[in-house]
C-alpha cells in the first residue's frame, strides 16, 4: 500500500494530495514539518535525516493503519524526507481525507505524533557555531524537567472551502 514512505528529494505535496482524493471525502487535513532555524536556544543552519528504512516503513505503515482503524477517515498518507535539508525545507508531510473534518484533524495529529515517537528516524542538527549534534541522543543528560520533545515544525492545515465537512 505504501501509506508511509521516504524520499530523498523534495516532497511533492500536489501528487501526495491526489492520492487522498475520494468521492466520499468532504475535505482533507495536512501537516507539514519544516526545518526551523533554532532549537533549544541554538541557531540551526541545516538538518540531516537518517532512517533505518526496512523497519521504519513497517512501523510507519502500522501507524497509518492504526489511524485508519481508530478514526473513520477515507485515506491517509505520510511521506518523510531523508538526507540533508536546509532551513524551511519540508521534512515530513501527513495528509488525511475524510467525510468530515473533525476526524481528519484527529487522525493527522495522531499520525505525526506517533511517527515522531516510534519510527526509527534520526536527525542531526548543524549549528551556526560550526558544531553539530544528534537530537535526543547527545543531550540526554539534560536536567530533569527539561523537555525531551524537540519540535521542528510550524503547522499548516489545509481544507477546501467547498467540502461538506
Amino acid at each position, binding site marked *: 500500500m505504501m501509506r508511509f514512505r521516504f524520499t530523498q528529494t523534495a516532497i511533492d505535496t500536489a501528487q501526495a494530495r491526489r492520492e487522498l482524493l475520494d468521492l466520499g471525502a468532504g475535505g482533507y487535513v495536512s501537516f507539514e514539518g519544516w526545518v526551523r532555524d533554532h532549537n533549544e536556544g541554538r541557531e540551526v543552519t541545516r538538518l540531516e535525516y537518517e*532512517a*533505518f528504512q526496512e*523497519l521504519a516503513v513497517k512501523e510507519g505503515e502500522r501507524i497509518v493503519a492504526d489511524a485508519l482503524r481508530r478514526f473513520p477517515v477515507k485515506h491517509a498518507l505520510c511521506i518523510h524526507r531523508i538526507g540533508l535539508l536546509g532551513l524551511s525545507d519540508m521534512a515530513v508531510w501527513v495528509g488525511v481525507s475524510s467525510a468530515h473534518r473533525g476526524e481528519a484533524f484527529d487522525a493527522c495529529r495522531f499520525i505525526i505524533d506517533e511517527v515522531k515517537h516510534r519510527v*526509527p*528516524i534520526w*536527525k542531526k542538527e548543524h549549528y551556526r557555531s560550526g558544531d553539530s549534534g*544528534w537530537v535526543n541522543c547527545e543531550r*540526554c543528560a539534560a536536567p530533569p524537567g527539561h523537555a525531551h520533545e524537540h519540535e521542528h515544525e510550524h503547522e499548516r492545515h489545509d481544507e477546501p472551502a467547498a467540502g461538506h465537512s
Partner: protein
Amino acid sequence: MQLKIQYYALMREQAGRSEETLETASATPADLYGELATRYRFTLTREQLKVAVNSEFSDWSRRLAAGDAVVFIPPVAGG
C-alpha cells in the same frame, strides 16, 4: 556464531562504520550491546535504546541465532 550488525546515527559515528559481520559468543541482544559498548565506547545506555533483529523490534533477552541481523536503535527524532 556470526551476526550482522548495522549502525545508525550517533552509534554509526561512534562505531566508525555503518555495518559489520561479527563473530561473537553473545547469546542475546543485551549481551551483544554490552560487548559492543565496551569496544566502541558507546555513550548511550541500553535503557535509552531499542533493538531490532531481522528488521523487527525485538526483546533484549531473545536468543540470537547465526546469521541474525541486529540493529540498536538510539532515541528517535523524526518529524
